[in-house]
């Protein structure tokens, strides 16, 4: 079977001592920073991106993927222990996870989250491997018009599935694309919006944008008020699940995994949406719905499995189509481009070691995470006690040095400061930063495919509608937009994001 030989190739790459070490380092760093307060996965990946610039592409991506799911995982640990979601997708874990911790069952909650994530991660990786080949072979026949329509659909779908105002999210995408235009136009050689500044002629590095808009903006937001973190008082007595726990958690893990794997492929808040959906589903099928919110183990098992499965399957559109599904995969896509690997259907053929190595490493990374988290939980609990006032100056130093290291120049530091202020104003006006980053990374590709498609069709804009695949993609995007305007869908969307 082709899938098996591909996976064998992948494991051959991922299981070299060096790559195991990078995977381990990534998962460790990701968990470490994910557990520390005030830094979500996007900021974590952005902060550590420059560290991987010196590595060869496969190792760099293996490490970055490790950082991503490590940070995701760290977020659920803080959700359970201190009722503080490290990121949006572990909000749901707080509901029952923290209640379990207060009842002295923190250990069981952590165990079930770990096992759920492991099962989901393994399944999600298999899904990814199985669907990648099929999707890529479809996408290989795409021309410029189809690519443009596909990216547009991806961006629109990301808006539909994200929470918050639709007009604002679309405005952020447009702003992101416009910011991505800064630099030399590849078609004409004209420098756009560089104002004669030499350092801007290659455009703004996406890491600088991410560090400003996600890293520093988050620091500023956290300093608006005195942090009121509950200190950890929970003792972790036992990690062992009893028979009743297993009986209740196992089907929840299975359902969460399936739901997450499917929903994760959709662009937009894959992990967020699937953890909410999994929680709602569990509550609905449970014979004891009244226990939810009071420490029901299913309420931890299902969303944790779902968001981890979704984290894996959100790699599918990025790796096979070159369309990132969320801010984190947009960052990983940017990292691939820095290493001169263009994400899209050709990656599988042109860089099979990278592609299958990355997928295999996710499986290894999930095993490493369980090993890291359960026995070492005592260390993580200690880290949770570090107060934010001590932590953020270190973040500031790291972000600054990281941006300096991109070009070994102080110029980008000033650019980052601009984006910090920009991002802070955006957050105050309740704009979301994720669509901005998606637009920024996809911007140059959108523009060049748009212009090429128009050139091929001799200036006829209907070409996007007369080519069947392109038309179908655009109609789907239009359908999603119409859905958004319909009041009943809007109501349900708001309900879904409020969770309860």
């Amino acid at each position, binding site marked *: 079977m082709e899938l098996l030989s591909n996976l064998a190739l992948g494991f051959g790459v991922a299981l070299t001592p060096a790559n195991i070490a990078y995977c381990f380092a990534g998962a460790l760093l990701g968990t470490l920073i994910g557990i520390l307060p005030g830094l979500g996965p996007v900021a974590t990946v952005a902060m550590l991106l420059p560290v991987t610039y010196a590595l060869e592409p496969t190792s760099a991506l293996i490490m970055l993927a490790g950082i991503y799911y490590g940070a995701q995982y760290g977020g659920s640990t803080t959700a359970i222990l201190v009722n503080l979601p490290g990121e949006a997708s572990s909000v749901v874990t707080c509901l029952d996870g923290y209640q379990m911790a207060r009842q002295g069952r923190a250990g069981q909650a952590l165990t079930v989250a770990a096992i759920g994530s492991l099962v989901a991660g393994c399944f999600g990786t298999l899904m990814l491997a199985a669907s990648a080949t099929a999707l890529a072979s479809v996408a290989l026949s795409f021309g410029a018009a189809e690519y443009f329509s596909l990216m547009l659909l991806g961006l629109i779908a990301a808006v539909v599935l994200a929470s918050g105002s639709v007009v604002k999210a679309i*405005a952020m995408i447009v702003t992101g694309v416009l910011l991505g235009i800064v630099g030399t136009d590849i078609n004409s050689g004209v420098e756009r919006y560089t*104002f004669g500044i030499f350092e801007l002629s290659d455009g703004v590095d996406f890491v600088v944008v991410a560090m400003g808009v996600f890293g520093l903006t988050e620091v500023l937001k956290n300093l608006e008020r005195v942090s009121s973190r509950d200190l950890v008082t929970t003792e972790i007595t036992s990690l062992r699940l009893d028979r009743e726990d297993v009986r209740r958690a196992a089907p929840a893990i299975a359902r969460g995994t399936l739901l997450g794997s499917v929903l994760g492929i959709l662009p937009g808040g894959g992990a967020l949406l699937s953890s909410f959906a999994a929680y709602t589903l569990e509550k609905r099928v449970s014979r004891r719905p009244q226990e939810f919110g009071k420490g029901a183990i299913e309420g931890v098992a299902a969303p944790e499995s779902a968001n981890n499965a979704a984290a894996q399957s959100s790699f599918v559109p990025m790796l096979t189509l070159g369309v990132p599904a969320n801010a984190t995969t947009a960052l990983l896509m940017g990292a691939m481009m820095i290493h001169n690997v263009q994400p899209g259907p050709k990656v599988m053929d042109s860089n099979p070691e990278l592609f299958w190595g990355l997928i295999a490493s996710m499986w290894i990374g999930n095993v490493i995470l369980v090993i890291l988290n359960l026995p070492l939980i005592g260390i993580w609990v200690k880290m949770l006690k570090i107060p*934010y006032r001590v932590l953020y100056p*270190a973040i*500031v130093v790291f972000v*600054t040095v990281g941006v*300096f290291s991109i070009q070994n120049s102080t110029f980008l530091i000033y650019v980052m400061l601009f984006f910090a202020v920009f991002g802070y*104003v955006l957050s105050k006006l309740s704009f979301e930063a994720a669509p901005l980053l998606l637009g920024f990374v996809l911007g140059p590709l959108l523009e060049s495919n748009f212009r090429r498609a128009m050139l091929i069709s001799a*200036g006829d804009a209907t070409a996007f509608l007369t080519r069947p695949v392109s038309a179908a993609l655009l109609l789907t995007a239009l359908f999603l937009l119409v859905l958004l305007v319909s009041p009943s869908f809007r109501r349900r969307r708001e309900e879904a994001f409020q969770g309860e």
Partner: protein
Amino acid sequence: MSKLLKNTDVLSGLFLLAIAAFFLIGGRNYEIGTLEEMGPGFVPLLLGSVLAALGVVLLVQGAATQATGLTVSGNWAIGPMILILGAIALFAFTLRHIGYVAACAMVVAISGLAAPDRRMREILIEAVLLAAISALVFVEAIGMPMPLFPWSN
């Protein structure tokens, strides 16, 4: 009027109009080209106009709901913003002159003041420790091209 200017949608609309104006005015000299062969100015003009339209939508929406609409809430972290971003700018500005160790200690010391619950002794200890450790890691171990001290080259 003051109510209008506190409405999130109104402010957001104005903000988008400002961004759109920047791209439309900054790009006014780029060649537009034709639909077949677009110049470098085509897409900025298109997207700048879309952004301006979205700004107007938000502006109208905000003006219509000014009584019931969302208002910008919470404190603006102006103090932390000046301290932290100022510290970083100082770092960038002085790095070549005073070296990494001093510049880093300065960033930690100044940005540390931004915490509402700051403790001076803690900040000083952290400044010294972070400067020393990060100098070892970034400059000595990774070999980033930054002078460590004013006299090192």
